[in-house]
């Protein structure tokens, strides 16, 4: 959990207040200057009224060069970041053809499948030549190739469920499945920090949505009891069904969900569970099978397991794994299966090869090596950062580690200074996180070597001193401690 010191909260609020005041001043002068110019869009309401895009225009545009940095190589351990310059004070950024080689601590490349891989790439190229980049038809109409059926069986076997169904994009998986499972008269209880795709899917389904406190099984129990006793709003009829949606690893906190307790609560009150393993499948667990394996939960206890292939498998797309009947029903009615182009065959082949490497079915033990390496790397990095005095969130074994920044001025300072020293970092602010809790987020990969990590630690420590984000006392290095003991 985040412990926000009082003084830091005050200074952060003061900074935001100052930025807000300056923004309003500039808006006022802009209105004065633009007054004589008559708008030729007379009669049309403006696309953005007043304060709707105030944050974009006055706060985000100032630090726009910290986000959306283009790269000119594969998103591997080292990337070529393209340099950009601006002629009008960061409002528009233009590309140059110069690139700088930087250490990549930002891409979701957990098992290192992002770049060309010795087992996967030849097979992807073969499937490209055979099936070409797209099938141009929907799954029910002849967009189902042998690769799609093979991958569905493989995913079901990997995750531990009877059957699975594929989609071409992870975001669409959530948005199109949740409306098919629960409609008006149902209840969705979701964690307060769930991803935008789940929020959109829940809104689009027409069911009532309630939120429970992040990762708090006792509050979930309270909410369940209250809701079952009350029934539907206004009519008090009993609910048709209740679905509880949680994620495996929360991408902005880096912490694992308390799955065994939540499953116990849901079983007691007969609610269905939906687990979104976008970041945890393939990255945690002894054989990469995700948060169920790590926390010792039987996959048969979770009703629906969802995941994406973008993060650990280096491809694109999503899947849902559940019982045979649910999958048959989804194949019959899910709109993303009936109306959207089927997943691109080379991407399917990439996932098949990646899963085979992880399971060791390609005849080598690279999969086991990758899994061991990512666990070692994450634990090493996290413990070193904590020793240096940074405030790092997240549980052990999770490859996502946010470092708290809080103050809005530290966001561009940290990001630009790290880039100058050839380390590419991701910083996140409002609206992806609460207003006061801006952070820098690090994603460790199995393709980082020990030297890469040590270099990253050096740079982050130096920049952290410069920017002033070491909120906790520094642990003195070991030999000083021993000297003190001798004295």
């Amino acid at each position, binding site marked *: 959990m985040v412990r926000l010191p009082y003084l830091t909260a005050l200074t952060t609020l003061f900074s935001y207040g100052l930025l807000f005041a300056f923004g309003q001043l500039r808006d006022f002068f802009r209105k004065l200057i633009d007054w004589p110019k008559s708008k030729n869009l007379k009669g049309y309401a403006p696309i953005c009224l007043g304060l709707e*895009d105030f944050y974009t225009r006055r706060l985000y545009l100032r630090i726009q060069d910290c986000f959306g940095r283009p790269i000119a190589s594969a*998103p591997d351990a080292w990337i070529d970041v393209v340099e950009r310059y601006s002629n009008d004070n960061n409002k528009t950024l233009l590309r140059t053809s110069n690139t700088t080689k930087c250490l990549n601590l930002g891409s*979701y490349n957990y098992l290192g499948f992002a770049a060309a891989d010795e087992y996967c790439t030849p097979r992807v190229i073969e499937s490209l*030549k055979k099936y070409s980049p797209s099938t141009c*038809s929907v799954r029910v109409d002849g967009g189902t190739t042998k690769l799609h059926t093979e991958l569905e069986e493989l995913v079901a076997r990997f995750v531990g469920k009877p059957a699975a169904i594929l989609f071409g994009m992870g975001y669409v998986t959530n948005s199109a499945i949740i409306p098919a499972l629960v409609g008006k008269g149902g209840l969705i209880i979701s964690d307060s920090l769930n991803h935008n*795709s789940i929020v959109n899917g829940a809104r689009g389904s027409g069911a009532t949505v309630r939120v429970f406190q992040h990762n708090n099984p006792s509050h979930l129990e309270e909410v369940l009891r209250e809701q079952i*006793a009350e029934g539907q709003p206004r009519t008090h009829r009993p609910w048709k069904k209740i679905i509880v949606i949680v994620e495996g690893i929360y991408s902005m906190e880096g912490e694992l969900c308390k799955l065994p307790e939540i499953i116990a609560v849901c079983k007691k009150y007969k609610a269905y569970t939906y687990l979104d393993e976008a970041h945890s499948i393939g990255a945690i667990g002894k054989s990469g099978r995700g948060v169920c394996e790590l926390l010792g939960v039987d996959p048969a206890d979770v009703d629906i397991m969802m995941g994406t292939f973008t993060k650990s498998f*280096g491809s694109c797309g999503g899947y849902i794994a559940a019982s045979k009947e649910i999958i048959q029903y989804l194949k019959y009615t899910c709109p993303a299966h009936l109306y959207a182009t089927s997943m*691109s065959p080379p991407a399917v082949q990439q996932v098949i090869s990646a899963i085979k490497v992880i399971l060791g079915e390609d005849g080598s033990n690279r999969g086991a090596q990758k899994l061991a390496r990512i666990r070692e790397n994450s634990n090493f990095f996290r413990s070193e950062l904590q020793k240096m005095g940074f405030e790092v969130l997240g549980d052990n074994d999770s490859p996502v580690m946010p470092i708290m920044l809080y103050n809005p001025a530290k966001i561009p300072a940290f990001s630009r200074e790290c880039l100058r020293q050839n380390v590419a970092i991701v910083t996140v602010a409002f609206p992806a996180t609460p207003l006061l809790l801006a952070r820098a987020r690090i994603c460790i990969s199995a393709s980082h070597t020990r030297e890469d990590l040590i270099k990253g630690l050096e740079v982050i420590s130096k920049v952290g001193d410069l920017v002033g984000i070491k909120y906790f006392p520094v642990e003195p290095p070991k030999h000083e401690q021993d000297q003190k003991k001798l004295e």
Partner: protein
Amino acid sequence: MASAVMNVTATVLDWMSAAFDAPLARAVVFGVHIDGHLVIEVLLIVVILFQLTRKSYKPPKKPLTEKEIDELCEEWVPESLHPPITEEMLAQPPTLESAAGPHSIIDGKEVVNFASANYLGLVGNEKIIDSCITSVEKYGVGSCGPRGFYGTIDAHLDCETRIAKFLGTPDSVLYSYGISTIFSVIPAFCKKGDIIVADEGVHWGVQNGLYLSRSTVVYFKHNDMASLESTLNKITRGNKRAEKIRRYIVVEAVYQNSGQIAPLDEIVRLKEKHRFRLVLDESHSFGVLGKSGRGLAEYCGVPIEKIDIITAGMGNALATDGGFCTGNVRVVDHQRLSSSGYVFSASLPPYLASAAITAVEYLQENPSVLETLRSNIALLQKGLADVPGLTITSHPLSPIVFLKLKKSTGSAKTDLQLLDTIADRVLKEDSVFIVTLKKSTLDKCRLPVGIRLFVSAGHSESDLLKASESLKRVAASVLAELL
């Protein structure tokens, strides 16, 4: 007796009136004489106040005890997550064993494929496959991040500029999946309180976007300009606040559910008269309509600046995956921060972006492929004009040829079963692969079901002839009872 009572009453009355008028305590408070009647009045006020402070009688409200809540939770029985599985849910689609070109291998047999929206015949094109191979070797397969966090690869930026240059707009935005384009764009611009006028035949992606935007949606009859005009008049009549509310018209260029083409010049005229903004979904017309394939605006002779927002999925004519959205600078910039499918999702795999660039270049260099496509459509329309029991409802220039039953059986389910039988027999007996329009239970569109044929520039004349002959023969035998 009576006089005695009278005397007593009179004395009491005298006594009371004396008491009332006697100045009590001979006091003068604030210049007011304290009289006897003032005491009664004060007593009355005190009594009224006392009554007001008493709680009125309400039956006491007892919250549920823990035991009662436990009982309710035990009693409650949820519905199952899925409805009972019926026969039609168990149907499996045919498996494709080769590329989805005009001739494909399905379940081991070679068939003529009319089910893939491969309008320009680019599936299997050597140049595109070569550019994909170079891309995969350089960038890998996935992009491993959203656009804001090192997921922007120079292939994406090149693709956006190329498409914008082709269409003649300042810039464009690339999305990673065709169907997510429209349901991310609409909620980014339309908020609660806005008014949207949409065609009733739009596909599920548009419907989902309209629902998520929480605006007021009014539907007009499918492709009927008179209905559109009357709806617009009704909405803007006498509405003074209409100046502050944003208003949009949402249509598709070529409708997936019926094959009709929207008359863009009419729509633009109406939009300018009533001051609405136009959102056009060009998934099936980009690369097909117009002299050089620039879409519906070129075909109708409307300058591209008049259309506010154009979206398209690239999974059809361009034979890749993903989608794009383009418009003026304000429109494009706004999406980069507030469109959920762009900000919160991983970006398009870079090899699909390079495939899109190569496809657009191919189209610009070989405009003759559009001529072939147009003559193929005309040939097929001629061949299918006299199929017994089925009529063509799509526009003569639309690349989706849509056939529906002349006389419906009354229920959509039995219609679909008849059409499925026709499609199965055509595949088994003549090796021609056609498909019916399957609807999801979440789809609100009520247009009739039918058979769809997607015409490609790669089909040869003999393919088209074979399809029309086969369809005529099978429809005649299956629908013999109905005729």
